């Protein structure tokens, strides 16, 4: 079975290369291996996607893994952003090394953990087992904890510690939720090992006991929600984003949050089936709005650029959660689209931010000035990325925000003022801070290694294209996924 091989390859490449990099990560060509491995992963993911598009959903490794149109889309996205991030991190990490901020050993750690992180995320996305999903999420936390603390500065340790404890506790709650889910499922499916398999659960979701599922969903939402960054569980997120190396911030924002949200979505589908009504949806909408509003007001007091964009990620996660909370084909479509756009745009922004902070030697926004004058490409990348993330057409973020807003106007008009207030405030705050960084005068010098600008513009080009034209097969794919989410 060729498809199976592709799938196994996709999981194996990061795992093996992660292990390999642990051993030989100090070699000169190790960064290239990192890029090549990520490229191969993406290639495998693309093949897998092509296969799923033509042949429909399929299982792998017994029933333990299941690839359907919903997660294959996340898989491709994850593999793609993983690849571009690895391209970006090459020169970035070299510069960090030359600045003396990272030793060779740490670089090795970085590369191997990056690959393992990719592995855990791909597992989390493709697993059919809600338990394995939990395990993979926890493993993703562990790998990223090491990545966040890579600099070993007091601040990065503090951030990593908070990240570990808060997400550890959060994920423990998700485990409780998973146990309750198993409990509910076991009463229907019996004591087989299949009771946590999502494909089975979906079939019987109507029969799951509602009172258990209510508790289960609350625990799952609070648990995975911590990782998504829903307010008021988000406190780890800005610290971890700000203090880790920038490529890590990019994948955290661009991928990890998505994967956590994916876990919430899987749970929601089950909860919806069991509980009926809008219980899960309403909870998510409430969390989404709260998160959105809070993050928007947080933005105003930020001094650190990565921290600010971390809050922007929280804000967008709030918006996406709200969209999925509304439910229905259109809102789910919009939510999925927005996840894609946010991943691509935010990671592009972090790429640009990474180079910008390296150039300026600081993450303090007040000290970063005149990027277009030292490096127009990076400056414009940051400017366009920021405009895109703020929902300026013709970038794709606007397309999804447009759909979310219009859908909200139709079904939940009361929420529109809150959404708009938050979006307006976010615009004012972020743009007001980014503009003087990009424009104006500067005294910064050039860097020893030229920045990798391809990823930034590749991402932005895709976002731009999706804002103007979504290819039909992508539309079909989104629609199918949206339908699965109910």
């Amino acid at each position: 079975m060729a498809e199976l091989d592709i799938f196994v390859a996709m999981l194996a490449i990061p795992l093996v290369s992660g292990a390999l990099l642990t051993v030989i990560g100090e070699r000169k060509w190790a960064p290239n291996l990192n890029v090549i491995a990520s490229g191969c992963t993406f290639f495998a993911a693309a093949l897998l996607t092509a296969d799923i598009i033509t042949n429909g959903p399929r299982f792998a490794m017994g029933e333990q893994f299941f690839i359907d149109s919903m997660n294959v889309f996340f898989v491709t996205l994850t593999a793609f952003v993983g690849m571009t991030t690895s391209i970006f991190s090459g020169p970035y990490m070299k510069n960090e090394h030359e600045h003396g901020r990272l030793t060779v050993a740490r670089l090795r750690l970085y590369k191997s953990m990056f690959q393992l992180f990719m592995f855990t995320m791909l597992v989390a996305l493709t697993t059919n087992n809600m338990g394995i999903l939990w395990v993979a999420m926890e493993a993703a936390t562990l790998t990223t904890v090491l990545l966040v603390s890579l600099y070993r500065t007091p601040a990065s340790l503090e951030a990593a510690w908070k990240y570990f404890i808060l997400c550890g506790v959060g994920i423990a709650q998700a485990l409780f939720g998973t146990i309750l889910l198993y409990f509910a499922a076991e009463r229907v499916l019996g004591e087989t090992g299949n009771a946590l398999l999502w494909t089975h659960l979906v079939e019987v979701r109507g029969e799951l006991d509602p009172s258990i599922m209510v508790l289960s969903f609350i625990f799952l939402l609070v648990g995975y929600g911590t990782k998504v960054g829903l307010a008021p569980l988000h406190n780890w997120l800005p610290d971890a984003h700000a203090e880790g190396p920038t490529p890590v911030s990019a994948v955290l924002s661009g991928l990890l949050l998505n994967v956590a949200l994916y876990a919430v979505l899987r749970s929601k589908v089950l909860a919806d089936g069991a509980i009926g009504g809008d219980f899960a949806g309403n909870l998510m909408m409430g969390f989404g709005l709260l998160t959105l509003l809070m993050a928007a007001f947080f933005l105003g007091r930020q001094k650190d650029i990565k921290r600010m964009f971390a809050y922007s990620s929280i804000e967008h996660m709030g918006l996406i959660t709200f969209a999925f909370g509304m439910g229905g084909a259109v809102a789910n479509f919009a939510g999925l689209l927005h996840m894609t756009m946010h991943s691509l745009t935010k990671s592009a922004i972090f790429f640009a931010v990474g180079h910008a902070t390296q150039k300026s030697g600081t993450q303090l926004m007040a000290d970063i000035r005149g990027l277009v004058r030292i490096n127009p490409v990076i400056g414009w990348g940051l400017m366009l990325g920021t405009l895109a993330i703020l929902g300026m057409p013709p970038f794709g973020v606007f397309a999804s925000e447009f759909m979310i807003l219009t859908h909200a106007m139709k079904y939940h008009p009361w929420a529109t003022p809150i959404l708009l207030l938050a979006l307006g405030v976010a615009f004012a705050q972020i743009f007001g801070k980014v503009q003087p960084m990009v424009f104006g005068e500067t005294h910064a010098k050039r860097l020893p290694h030229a920045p990798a600008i391809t990823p930034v513009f590749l991402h932005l080009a895709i976002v731009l294209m999706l804002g103007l034209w979504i290819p039909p097969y992508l539309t079909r794919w989104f629609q199918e996924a949206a339908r699965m989410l109910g």
Partner: protein
Amino acid sequence: MPPLISIDVLLIAACAWLAIGLAGMLAPRRLEFISKTLFPFGSVVSFIVGVTALFFLGDEPQATVLAIGLPTLPFHLRLDNLAAVFVLLLGFVSFGISVYAAGYFRKGEGAAPGLLCIEYHLFLASMLMVLLADDAYAFMVAWEGMALSSFLLVTTDHRHEAIRRAGYLYLLIAHVGAISILLSFGVMTGGAGDYTFAGMRAQELSPFWGSAAFLLALVGFGAKAGLVPVHVWLPEAHPAAPSPVSAMMSGIMLKTAIYGLLRVCFDLVGTTIWWWGVVAMAIGLVTALFGVLYSTVQSDMKRLLAYSSIENIGLLAVGIGLALLFHSFHMEILAALAMTAVFYHCLAHAGFKSLLFLCTGSVLHATHERSLGRLGGLIHRMPWVAWLALLGVIASAGLPPLSGFVSEWLLLQAFLFSPGLPHSWLNMIVPVAAAVIALVAAMAGFAMVKFHGIIFLGQMREPNLIHAHDAGPWERAGLVWLAVLTVLLGVLPSTLIGLIDGATQQLLGTGLAGRVAEHGWAMLAPISPDRASYMPMLFLATIATVLLLARWMVRRFYHGRTRRSDAWDCGYFFQGPRAQDTAEGFSQPIRRIFEPMFRMERHFPSIRDEQPYYSVKVEDHFWYWLYLPVARVADWVSGLIVRIQGGRIAIYLLYSFLTLLLLLLVARP
């Protein structure tokens, strides 16, 4: 292959602009190539756009659907008469501006030429798309694209903090406005979820929701047009931009907001309630009065013009309000009169304001000076610019026989025949509104005399002005083209009203063309010659004849001898340039009469001062009444909310715990 229809031509034109912009990116530093090849190409496209619209006017609407956009909502485009009037404006005015721009951009000023080229042409293309858009998504994309590209153009010279601030303020208010517009569209779909304009037209809205849509649109488009109190960005952004861009923003972009307002009020909402007109009129009057008052007291030539644009937008809003009022009472002829005035003023203002902004551009290039206090006497060095600016000034002051007068005349005519409205209150208010309009028109004259007199006339206030040079051939050509437009609009009102009448008919069901056409091209009598008429050609001819005849006769019967000498010094020894009125001095009466309208910081010299000086800084009340309080509240809320992130992990855990507990106790399906 189907024949090429107007909308196709326009689409191709938009693509051509984009292509020209991208071509600029290929060689971003080659100024000669960009300014002497690409910009002229762009101007040719502009001209084609204008001509296409000219030939289209009066035809049936043409629609098309592009395969881009959202999967559920591809780009719908439609060219109808309303859009065509504005496309006409866009094409012909931008033609002049592009020709001018070909000679304007220099080396070493602001951004790379290639960047300017792409931003400039993107701006043009997005404005065209705004006019063609026929669904909410396409409209918003084009609308924000327009805001974005113009923002980038405004911040071309981003090294100055003030310009960055201006750009920020501009984009922020534009964005808030866009949100409001989007909401308005949302309301107009009436919950049906059909975001095409056709879908919106099909909806029957209740008065409440209709009013909501109207008010949201008024705020949204008002933010772009510069209606009070969302005008604050305009006097900052317009002066900050390079002059061709200022011209384009004031001349064309503001009109797209008017277009949007017309589109919503008369086309999409479907119903009209009389008080909408009153609201629009009231806001318009306040805006006009505010704009003109502030324009008289400015000391920066481009700010002066920017405030004058606010004034003109106010007049347009008044016209729209009046049309709404008449329309709601089914007084269609009068509504058509007001509407024609609106269209005409759009065209007229686009022409003369672009002309004036371009003139300031030439002055800026020649002198590197924007402050009125350092200019003067430039008519000797740059006669072309000075005389062409004089045309703009006369038109802008609303004086015959140029374009500004025609629209003001039409507007006042509409006011004059307003009695007969079924509300006695309205009957009282309308004349008062007319009085305010009259005041505004007269004060516009004051501001314009100040503008022209202080820049071009008198003695040079700074010695280096002697090195100023006149505009180059490209710039001159652009200026002449716009001046010609201004004159044509002034002297051929009947013909032009006949042209744009299709749009009036489309919106109101009736137009003025029939009545106007009866009296031939020379005479404008929209209702009947007994009631009111205006023959600009005769007007112009009489003055010209008298002028020439008087000159000839004086020389024939007496002589034409002239001698030069020093100016009479009235017994004062010192009569240097410093003795002339300053810009501040010129507007002193206005500041004195309308003192409460301004927020002034003045410093008066006292007897004991070692180095006495006088200074005055005029600021906008709205900053202190509206914007700063809002910013302060937002900041205060931020201050409260960030306390959540106190840094203590125990507290974070507590949040998590309490959330869980709360959900366990409270959340029930």
